């Protein structure tokens, strides 16, 4: 197996309505990543290009349409697709393109434009449900999340105020992010007083509708060493998909995230993640999901992530805990679905290479993890980077 290095990362601003087309967003992110890596398109052997549902842009075979912008014309291009987990899965796919020995370098691009969906992307989400048993109920994502959040709060006796603190933390972290859409200094009261979407989910606990793109450059060890700098390496990858019958599962704990994380820890040789992972970017499309995922990732015992939150364990400036979502996450930076998850991988790369600027965590970090989640509360994707 070839060792795989992250040579560069780039992203566009995350905005509610981009004036750029999807192709242009891809170009902007890919160009920034190539520039960061000091490479040109001629150095790139293959492209992994992803985007979440075609229904957002209303373009069938969306990556075929986008590929010119992502520099994939005339190159091998693959689109890994696991719904919201696609962004981290794209990085994992980039890893297997290079680790297999088939390609020296890989440009990984994730793009999402949710703004073309009118009147609101939640309409497209109705079509993710079973066409016979669930779609006729008119369900959307907010409903399913309110069920899961309620279950999580009930089983582990978690107060709503604690969950609101995730939104406060992440939106504050995002203030230091130049690409952020929703960086803000808020209080718990403000979050709790925001509009009820589907109780107990409030508007400020939900990530926004966003357009944007992110890109990474990966290379094998020989290629990376020739570039002769200190590198960030991919140490482990994992992914797992649970049953489509989400109604048959206990929603209080994400087993699929546990399976994905354990696979990634095994590959990275990690036996005690709470000691060996120094910074984490768990997926936070909804405030409670960050806590839920931190438990699935084995970084906290079941039901304990909220208690650790109260103690400041997940804060960006912690010296004894594990900073979680130092970027500001989906709640703060924004949530262009596939691109948001790849932004989390890019953030770990920036943190480990000391390029995170204002967002740089205070503790010394040698290894970090990014995780995404998607489909019908069903897929976990995990990548571990280290220096």
């Amino acid at each position, binding site marked *: 197996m070839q060792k795989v290095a992250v040579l560069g990362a780039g992203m566009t601003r995350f905005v509610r309505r981009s004036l750029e087309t999807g192709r242009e967003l891809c170009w902007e992110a890919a160009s920034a990543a190539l520039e960061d890596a000091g490479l040109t398109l001629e150095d790139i052997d293959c492209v992994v290009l992803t985007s979440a*549902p075609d229904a957002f842009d209303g373009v069938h075979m969306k990556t075929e349409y986008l590929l010119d912008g992502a520099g994939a014309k005339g190159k091998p291009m693959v689109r890994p697709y696991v*719904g919201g987990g696609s962004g981290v899965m794209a990085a994992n796919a980039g890893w297997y393109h290079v*680790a297999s020995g088939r390609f020296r370098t890989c440009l990984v691009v994730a793009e999402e434009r949710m703004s073309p969906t009118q009147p609101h992307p939640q309409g497209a989400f109705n079509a993710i449900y079973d066409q016979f048993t669930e779609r006729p109920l008119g369900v959307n994502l907010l409903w399913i999340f309110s069920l899961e959040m309620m279950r999580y709060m009930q089983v582990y006796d978690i107060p709503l105020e604690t969950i609101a603190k995730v939104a406060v933390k992440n939106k504050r972290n995002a203030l230091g992010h130049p690409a952020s859409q929703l960086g803000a200094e808020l209080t718990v009261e403000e979050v709790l007083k925001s509009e009820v979407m589907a109780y107990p989910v409030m508007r400020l606990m939900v990530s926004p509708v966003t357009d944007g793109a992110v890109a990474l450059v990966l290379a094998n060890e020989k290629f990376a060493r020739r570039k002769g700098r200190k590198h960030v390496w991919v140490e482990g990858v994992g992914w797992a998909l*649970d049953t489509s019958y989400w109604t048959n599962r206990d929603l209080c704990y994400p087993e699929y995230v546990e399976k994905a994380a354990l696979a990634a820890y095994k590959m990275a040789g990690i036996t005690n993640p709470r000691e060996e992972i120094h910074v984490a970017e768990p997926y936070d499309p909804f405030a409670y999901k960050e806590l839920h995922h931190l438990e699935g990732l084995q970084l906290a015992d079941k039901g304990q992530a909220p208690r650790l939150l109260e103690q400041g364990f997940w804060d960006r400036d912690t010296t004894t805990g594990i900073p979680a979502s130092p970027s500001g996450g989906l709640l703060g930076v924004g949530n262009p679905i596939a691109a948001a998850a790849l932004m989390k991988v890019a953030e770990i790369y920036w943190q480990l290479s000391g390029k995170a600027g204002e967002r740089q965590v205070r503790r010394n970090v040698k290894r970090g993890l990014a995780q995404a989640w998607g489909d019908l509360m069903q897929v976990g994707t995990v990548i571990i980077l280290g220096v």
Partner: protein
Amino acid sequence: MKEKVAIVGAGFTSLRPVSPEASFRELIFEAAVRAYEDAGLTPQDVDSFVSIGEDYQDGTCIMDEYTPDQLGAVQRPVHTISGDGVAGLGVAWMLIQTGQFRVVVLEGHSKASNVRHPAHVEAMALDPSFARVHGWHPSFVAGLEMRRYLHETGTTEEQVARVAVKNKYNALKNPIAAYPARLSAEQVLGSRPVAEPLRELEMAPTADGAFVFVLAAGSELERCQGRPVFVDSVAWISDTCNLPTRDWSRAVYTEKAAAQAYQLARIREPQSAFSFAEIDDTFAYKELQHLEALGLAERGAAGRRVEEGFFDADGPLPVNVSGGALGCGHLFEANPLRGLLEAVLQLRGQAGPRQVPRARRGLICSWRSVPTATGGVAVLSRRK
């Protein structure tokens, strides 16, 4: 890339214009059970699962959600590739080459009968600002391409019609084919024009079906009972589908993919390298265009060779002995998996009445249909 990769199990359903008695998940289940039985393995022996498909063709937003249960892959590493069967094969091959996964399953399916108007779906793949707004039937892209191909190569419309005659005739010997027929070139040329010079009988009609393959690393073959067929190389290339800047007469993606696939499989003279080839024929002229891009015929000579019977089932190089998409049905992204199945059966000597004698190495070539310029090439062989 030291590890050899082999297909050790193949499962499939028959291909039919409609399948009202089964959902797409039930079709996949049928194929999966047969594939595991063929390989002598259970889903617990599998390290990773790859499915292929596109949302709009399945009528589900995020179709990846509905992939794990019927493969026995719940809470296992499953991911979808929104690409064709050759790209999926490439991903399975790469996963094994990383050394982290020893046995990988590849699944692809079509439930085209659920789609009332496939052309409406295809039209959604056109550039929303510059191409779709005209409201044309998406086959105009194929019509324009065919016109340019005929113009530049001197190929005749009758030669294109003969591809349809050959493939539908070949399908008479394939028990899973949906559209076998004994036709004359006159009948094909007399069928309804769709986007001139393209005619209805030169377009593959859609069909339903599912395929599941079990792939294993060379070092794992002892625990698999299925007779292995080796994947010597896989390559896939995307060219632009932007109408104003694309190439209208050559399959540039196939030329580039073939160059990579031949290099990896150490093939110097493709014309004499293969016992048979399964080549994308979603539209009849595409088979000729792809044959030339693969170097299996000189530029402009493929049509004449079809007329001479060179690519007939009993000719020097049988092309689409399965019946191709024209004879078996258009299965969207799963089209190349029908070719892959044929390659497995031929190389194992299990192709029955359409068995190519002494088959030792085969080629499959895919295209993702209009409006794309994306396709792949794979080389398969039996144990040398």
